[in-house]
Each structure stands twice: as structure tokens, then as C-alpha cells.
């Protein structure tokens, strides 16, 4: 399709239009998965381990099964021993011979009420014999305790390098780092640690499953990836995937925490066993002990510079703690390497990303997986270097950033590079000239880059006889506004208003494939597919008009909801009616795939995501105060300068930035799933502290628009980058305000005050 032929008219795309699902959400009529019910529905609950690593001696459910109202109890013994997983097939539905973490599913119950289901959980007798466990990812690499003693038998992607608890090891290499260290003016070596962070979506994971008379199952669920969930369910249920139907009614946030199968399989298995619809809704405790949070990480970073602060070489090792199953850990460890390289001319690179198993919660792909962990290390160290060399931290960055046409870490040519503009604008807006305005007050800056994830999107667009269009997409509207954005692109291209676009629900049985609401790609990729469909429809409309008028299609235009040729005009609505009489109606299938740029495979080893598509560039700056007695951080102001390529809807882009920064502030200052001896100490929202309205400052958003060649009207991915920089920017501001440098997240008041006291002594 000739999608390039469309240019944004500024009429719909680029405008601050209200989101399409807003009214339903403010009046309480929008149906989320957690709201979905069916007549006769049973309530499912999961029995989870309270031991971090133990052998299962006995499971006796006879008492539970005898409780009136209990309709089924299932354990690993009742289902085929399927193991699933993206990179390594290591995850069973229920614990097999051993429980591998606190929160590991042991059994599932379905009952006529939730209360009876809870009674049944308490009546299942489980005997566990505790085993030695491993919690520290670096200790785990010694393989003294194996999380998966059968690791060699597990199916895994051939690209992965595995060894016992090591689930993957990716590398990026460029130039000669040893030579760089040998000739360096200074070499800096530091280690950083980050904590496990929950995605924090307000709607828990929820699924309702029901089987029909033909043995097909339908699951209504709040997944970000309906097609991936469909495939995983098909494997677990041993069905062809076409017999598994996944419908996403509505979803209350995801942030990467609802990518992979969550509770869908429990609902489907219980529904099959009971021949009744079954609903499973996660509790807060399950969310904080057994969802898929952001991995914790350890980063060792060694950097060589010359006298002027020019980077000569970087050696880095990041250890990503996957928990008990690999999940997205191998991908996260790999992607972290591009973040460690940063938007910098590094001279030479030797980076290694390791994913490792421990007896903790299996982690997932929380927004910009690896981004904040690696960025915290790189950008903290940039400030340490700047301080040591007596160079302004902004100036040090400007001396080292990449420019248009430079090669990226994979040897790819970087295009639409805007990092200098982002840095300068963020610095100016925060008032960088006055970096330490008062005692205990300071400013910090951090910058990064990030990809727009590839993967394909398909859409069907149908023109209705009233002249409106219906968009059928398999992409889930997570709340970001991405589907409103894609609809703005579609409306713009078809000369319609946004109110002329109807959006159909996501249903794997009827929706065209979409790679999913992940990786900052939805508006980008669905928008491109919409442009392709619009180009097809425009041609169909021209052909129909040409038939009506007995002329050729040359010089025809689609404008003001009409096809226009010279002094002739016919409305889209009229053509849609004509097509219904003669041609079965107007419909187009638009598709999009953004091919990765050319790169040098010689620079990479065992890397799952070897090169970044359509990277975006960004900088964030913060002005904060630290109470020297209590260590409490108060953020006065926050600035983000982010290159979005083209702002399809500035309002919701700002919303993405403000929300992402808020999550990053949480990661920086307060959020951590705290483990002690393998047990989660804060599995509730009282003790797991996410930012409230009082913890998030006013945020200034500067939208830089350096158009990409690949995105709709030049757009780049937006959603993930805002949460990458806050830990580093805040750490740098704390150091600027107090002189105290924090190397581990979250930077709680306790840690800060301890640093301040140590410095005073």
C-alpha cells in the first residue's frame, strides 16, 4: 500500500481530542475483565506456597472436596505436565515435585461462592519439606543450589547460553576495551543495585472462562497480548489454538505486567473440570507475591575516559534476577545492553547481560524492561565522572552523545537523532544554570534512548453506509490512548472526524492479528496499519466513483468525506451504499511491519533483540530538596523532554509521560517487594508504597518532534521511555543537593539519612 502518500492534515491527527472510551469510563459503564460475570459462574481461588523452596511430600484435598459448594480441586496431578515460557519452557501450571518460590501455585479450587473457595483452600492439606534455597542472583550463578536441577531437559530458544541457574547470557562487543582502559586518563568502576517493582495496575488480573458444547473455550480476560495468551492456553489445554477464544472486554492498566498468561489457565482448567463458567480474580497478596514484577538487577560498570571526559571504553555486566522462571529475563538482560551503551559514543564496548534463576517471584516485562536498571547505573556514573573531572554533568553528556548518522551499539546507522535537543531543553526548563540553589536543594539530569518495538499489526477497516468507519484491531487499548491515536491517524487519512470512527472489541476469533499492546508500539504500528487500510479504501472509493462517473481515477481526491474529481463530488456514505448493492461493502485489510535496520551481527553474541527499531531519545531533569535530618526527599519540579517524532495527540502523550515519571519516582524512592529469607514481607498496598498525588510533583512535558521515517506521520514510540530516567535523575539530584551518592534502589529516606550520617562522621 502507498501509505507514504498520506501527510497529516492537522485536522484530526496532531490534535488534543478527547479519548474515545472516556465517557464510558467516567460514568462507570466501561466493562473491565474484573467486572465481567456469567450466569451460574463459579469462583476460583489458588492455593499458593508459603515456603520459598520445598519438596512436596503430600497434597490431600479430600477435606476440601467434601465442603458443600466446592465443585473442583485441581493440582498438577490432574493435568498434563505442560511447561510453558517465552524463552525457556520452564513454567508449569502448578508446582510439580517442588515449590520454587513463596507464592508458587499448588492447587486451584472452584466453588459456588468466594467464601467457600477460601474455606476450601484452608482445608487442603499440604505437607512440605523445606529445601536449601538461593535468593541472591550473584550467589545463584555459583550453582550451589539449582532452582531447576533438570535445566538441561527444558526446551529453550537455541540462541540462549544456559548453565544451571544461568538462563541466558547476551553480549555486545565493539572495539578494544582493554586498550581503552590501558590508555585512559581515569577509569571508574562502580556497582549498582535495583529492587523488584510491581507494575501496580489498579485492576488485578482477572479471567472468566467458559466451555461450549463443542469443546471450545472462551476466556474473557485483561491480557495485553490476547494472541500470545491464546497460544499459551492452547498448549496448556492441549487444543488447537483456534479452539481457544480470548476476548478482552476492558483492561485496568498493564504496564507490561499483564503480557503473559496470568490467571487465564486456572479459570479455563477449573471451568473444564466443573462444566461451569469460572472466574478467577487475583488478590493483592497474590499480585505482590506471584504476579510478574520488574526484575531486580545488579550492574557492574567500568568506564574509561580521557582528560576532557571523552568516553574511551565501557565494560559492563548486568545480572537480572528472573526469579523461579526465566519469563522475559533473557530478553531483559539482552536489551539492558543497549541501555548500558546509552545515547553515547562509547569508544569501545564489552557488555554482558546475564539472566539468572533464584527462589523468588518469577519476573516479567514491566514498562521499559531493563531501562531504569541499566540507566540508573550509566547515568549515575556519568555524574560521578563529571564531578571527579570538574566538568558540568550536562556538558559531559553533550561531549559524548551520539549524532545523526553515528553508528549505534549494534553497528546500525542512527537516524532522527535528537538527544542534544532533548538534553538542552530539559536543562533549560529546570534552570540548569543554578544547579545547587540552596543548601539541601539540588538538580539532576539523566538521558537515554529506547526502541519502538517491532512486530506486525493487522487491521480491518470497514466503511459503513452512514459514512462512518469501523476499525477492527487485535490491539488492546490499555489506557494509553493508543487506539484513540490510531483512530485519529485513520480519520485523518480518510477525511473523517474522530467521532466517525467506531472501534470494535478485541476478540481473537474475529480480530486480525496484532503483536500486542507492548513495547511502545501500539499507536505506531496500528497507526501504520490504519494508513495502509486507508490507502486501500481510498482506491476502492476512487474506483467506485470512477464507475459512477465513467471517468478515470486520475486526479481524484478524498476530501471533506467525499471523493472529488474536478467539479464532481460524491460522499463516502453514498459510495458505501452503492458498494453494498453491488460489491459486498467496502472493507480493507491494512497491515504493518517495521523492519529492523541493518546491523553488524559481529558485534553481538546470543542477543535476543539485536537491534533497535525507530529509537527515540529523551532527557529528564529534576529539582528536589532533601531533609538533612530525616532523609526525606521532596521533589519541587520535574521536566521531561522526549522525542515523540510526531505528537498524534499531545494530551495523551503528556499523560504517558506524567504516568511513567510517577512510576519511575516510585521505583526511585519507595517501591520494593521486600524479601526476607525468601518470604515477601510487604504483600499488601499498605506496605508496598506506590506514589500518591502528594508524592508526584508538577511535571513539565516538552514534546520534541524529530520525525521518524517509519512511524505514522513520523511518530515514534512513546509509552515506555518516561519511566527509564527517574531513578538516575533523582540520584543525581540527591548527590547535587547533599553530596551523598546512592547506589541502590529504592533510595529510601533511611538509606539517604544513613549516607548523610556516614559522610558527617
Amino acid at each position, binding site marked *: 500500500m502507498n501509505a507514504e502518500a498520506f501527510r497529516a492534515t492537522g485536522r484530526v491527527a496532531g*490534535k*488534543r*481530542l*478527547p*479519548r474515545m*472510551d*472516556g*465517557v*464510558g*469510563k*467516567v*460514568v*462507570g*459503564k*466501561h*466493562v*473491565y475483565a*474484573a*467486572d465481567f*460475570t456469567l450466569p451460574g459462574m463459579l469462583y476460583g481461588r489458588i492455593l499458593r506456597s508459603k515456603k520459598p523452596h520445598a519438596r512436596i511430600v503430600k497434597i490431600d484435598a479430600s477435606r476440601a472436596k467434601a465442603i458443600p459448594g466446592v465443585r473442583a480441586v485441581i493440582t498438577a496431578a490432574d493435568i498434563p505436565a505442560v511447561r510453558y515460557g517465552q524463552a525457556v519452557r520452564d513454567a508449569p501450571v502448578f508446582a510439580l515435585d517442588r515449590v520454587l518460590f513463596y507464592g508458587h501455585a499448588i492447587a486451584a479450587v472452584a466453588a459456588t461462592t468466594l467464601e467457600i473457595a477460601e474455606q476450601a483452600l484452608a482445608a487442603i492439606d499440604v505437607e512440605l519439606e523445606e529445601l536449601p534455597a538461593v535468593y541472591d542472583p550473584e550467589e545463584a550463578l555459583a550453582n550451589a543450589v539449582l532452582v531447576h536441577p533438570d535445566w538441561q531437559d527444558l526446551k529453550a530458544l537455541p540462541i540462549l547460553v544456559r548453565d544451571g541457574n544461568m538462563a541466558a547470557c547476551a553480549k555486545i562487543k565493539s572495539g578494544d576495551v582493554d586498550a581503552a582502559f590501558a590508555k585512559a586518563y581515569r577509569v571508574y568502576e562502580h556497582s549498582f543495585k535495583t529492587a523488584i517493582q510491581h*507494575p*501496580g*495496575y*489498579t*485492576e*488485578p488480573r482477572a479471567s472468566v472462562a467458559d466451555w461450549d458444547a463443542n469443546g471450545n473455550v472462551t476466556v474473557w480476560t485483561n491480557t495485553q497480548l490476547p494472541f500470545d495468551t491464546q497460544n499459551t492456553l492452547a498448549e496448556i489445554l492441549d487444543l488447537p489454538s483456534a479452539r481457544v477464544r480470548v476476548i478482552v472486554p*476492558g*483492561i*485496568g*492498566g498493564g*504496564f507490561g505486567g499483564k503480557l503473559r498468561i496470568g490467571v487465564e489457565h486456572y479459570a479455563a482448567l477449573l471451568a473444564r473440570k466443573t462444566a461451569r463458567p469460572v472466574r478467577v*480474580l487475583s*488478590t*493483592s497478596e497474590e499480585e505482590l507475591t506471584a504476579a510478574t514484577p520488574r526484575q531486580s538487577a545488579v550492574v557492574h560498570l567500568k568506564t574509561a575516559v580521557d582528560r576532557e571526559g571523552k568516553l574511551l571504553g565501557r565494560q559492563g555486566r548486568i545480572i537480572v534476577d528472573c526469579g523461579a522462571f526465566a519469563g522475559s529475563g533473557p530478553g531483559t538482560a539482552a536489551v539492558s545492553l543497549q541501555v548500558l551503551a546509552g545515547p553515547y559514543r562509547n569508544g569501545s564496548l564489552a557488555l554482558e547481560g546475564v539472566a539468572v534463576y533464584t527462589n523468588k517471584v518469577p519476573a516479567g516485562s514491566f514498562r521499559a524492561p531493563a531501562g531504569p536498571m541499566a540507566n540508573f547505573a550509566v547515568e549515575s556514573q556519568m555524574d560521578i565522572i563529571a564531578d571527579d573531572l570538574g566538568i558540568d554533568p550536562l556538558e559531559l553528556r553533550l561531549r559524548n552523545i551520539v549524532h545523526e548518522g553515528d553508528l549505534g551499539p549494534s553497528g546500525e546507522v542512527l537516524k532522527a537523532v535528537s538527544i542534544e535537543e532533548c538534553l538542552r531543553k530539559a536543562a533549560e526548563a529546570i534552570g540548569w544554570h543554578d544547579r545547587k540553589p540552596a543548601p539541601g536543594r539540588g538538580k539532576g539530569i539523566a538521558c537515554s534512548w529506547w526502541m519502538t518495538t517491532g512486530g506486525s499489526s493487522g487491521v480491518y477497516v470497514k466503511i459503513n453506509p452512514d459514512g462512518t468507519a469501523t476499525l477492527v484491531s487485535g490491539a488492546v487499548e*490499555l*489506557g*494509553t*490512548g493508543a487506539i484513540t491515536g490510531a483512530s485519529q491517524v485513520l480519520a485523518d487519512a480518510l477525511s473523517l472526524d474522530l467521532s466517525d470512527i467506531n472501534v470494535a472489541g478485541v476478540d481473537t476469533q474475529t480480530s486480525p492479528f496484532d503483536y500486542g499492546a507492548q513495547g511502545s508500539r501500539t499507536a505506531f504500528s496500528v497507526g501504520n496499519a490504519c494508513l495502509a487500510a486507508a490507502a486501500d479504501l481510498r482506491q476502492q472509493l476512487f474506483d467506485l466513483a470512477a464507475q459512477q462517473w465513467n471517468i478515470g481515477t486520475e486526479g481524484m481526491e478524498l476530501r471533506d468525506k467525499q471523493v472529488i474529481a474536478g467539479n464532481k463530488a460524491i460522499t463516502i456514505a453514498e459510495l458505501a451504499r452503492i458498494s453494498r448493492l453491488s460489491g459486498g461493502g467496502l472493507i480493507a485489510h491494512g497491515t504493518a511491519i517495521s523492519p529492523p535496520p541493518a546491523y553488524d551481527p559481529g558485534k553481538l553474541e546470543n542477543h535476543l533483540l539485536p537491534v533497535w527499531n525507530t529509537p527515540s531519545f529523551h532527557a529528564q531533569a529534576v529539582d528536589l530538596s532533601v531533609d538533612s535530618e530525616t532523609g526525606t526527599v521532596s521533589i519541587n519540579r520535574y521536566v521531561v523532554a522526549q522525542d515523540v517524532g510526531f505528537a498524534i495527540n499531545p*494530551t*495523551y502523550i*503528556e*499523560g504517558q*509521560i*506524567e*504516568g*511513567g*515519571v*510517577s*512510576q519511575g519516582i516510585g521505583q526511585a524512592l519507595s517501591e520494593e517487594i521486600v524479601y526476607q529469607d525468601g518470604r515477601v514481607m510487604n504483600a*499488601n*498496598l*499498605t506496605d508496598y508504597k*506506590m506514589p*500518591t*498525588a*502528594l508524592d*508526584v510533583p*508538577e*511535571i513539565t512535558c516538552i514534546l520534541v518532534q524529530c520525525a521518524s521515517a517509519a512511524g505514522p506521520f513520523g511518530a515514534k514510540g512513546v509509552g515506555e521511555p518516561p519511566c527509564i530516567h527517574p531513578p538516575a535523575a533523582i540520584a543525581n539530584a540527591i548527590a547535587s543537593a547533599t553530596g551523598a551518592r546512592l547506589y541502590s534502589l529504592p533510595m529510601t529516606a533511611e538509606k539517604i539519612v544513613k549516607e548523610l550520617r556516614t559522610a558527617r562522621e
Partner: protein
Amino acid sequence: MSRKLLELTINGEKHQLLAEPHWTLLQVLRGQIGMMGTKENCLEAECGVCTVLLDGHAVNSCLLLAGQAEGHEITTIEGLGQPENLDPLQAAFIACGAVQCGYCIPGMILTAKSYLDENPGYVPSRQEIREAIAGTLCRCTGYSKIVDAISQAAQDRLTGNTLTESKETAA
């Protein structure tokens, strides 16, 4: 377990139902009456998504026993504006881009309504608004646009402006 007859007044309508004495108002609203606009999450009054109004004041329906709501006027999000006739707060939330996933929004709007109604004739500062909504978690927005919306609604009620979801406010 013995169910008792409860009479609840919800959005001006009387509802009679048999309920267990330990059922919360949230359980009754969602599980018995089927009004799903009031949301469910932490069940320990930390997240605020279950907020409803009791005689005009915001309460967490996850901790309030349904029986305790007898004799009081309960207002849920379904009792505020309707799509064709939105409450000014609902309109302001849309116009200001304060809605993303929307799961916290019913609770957020009712919290804001309670706060504004308790402080008539007054436009609160942004900091005061932040304090008023600090009991409701939103993970999507970073709160800025929610504060914008509440501030806008507070100003409009003094000046008599009415926001509707028109193209003027949208642009």
C-alpha cells in the same frame, strides 16, 4: 450463616435484599446488585477504587459493612451524570485528559465530588486537591491531569460555566 433483610438507598432508589451480616457494601453493590461501576482492588482501603458517597461523603465501600449503610443515602458513579448529561466533574475529567485506563476514575471522581461539596464556594489550590485525593491510587496518569480536572470543575462551579464534551472544550 444467617442472611438478614437489608434495605439500601442507592442513587435514590430503594433496594431490598438478603445479605450476610459480614458482607461489605462493595460486595453487595457488585456481587448482589450487579452495579459494577464501583471498582474492586485491594480490599483494605488503600487504593480507593471502591469509593462511594455515603450521605455525600466519600467512604471506602470495601471496608464498610453493607448493614452500616442502611438508613443512609448511597451514591455510586452510576448515580452521578449520564452520558448525555455528565456531571461537571465527569466532563472535566474527559476534557482535561485525566482518564487513561479509567479503573480508578469512578473512585477518584466521587472523592473529588465529596471534597468539593464539603468546601462550597471555594476554589482549592492544586496542593489542596492533591491532599484531598491522596487516598486514591492512580498508576496511569501521575495525577497532574486529574488535578487539572478537579481544579477546572471547581472554577466552573463558581463562574457558572458548564463543561460538556463539546468540540470547543476538546480542541
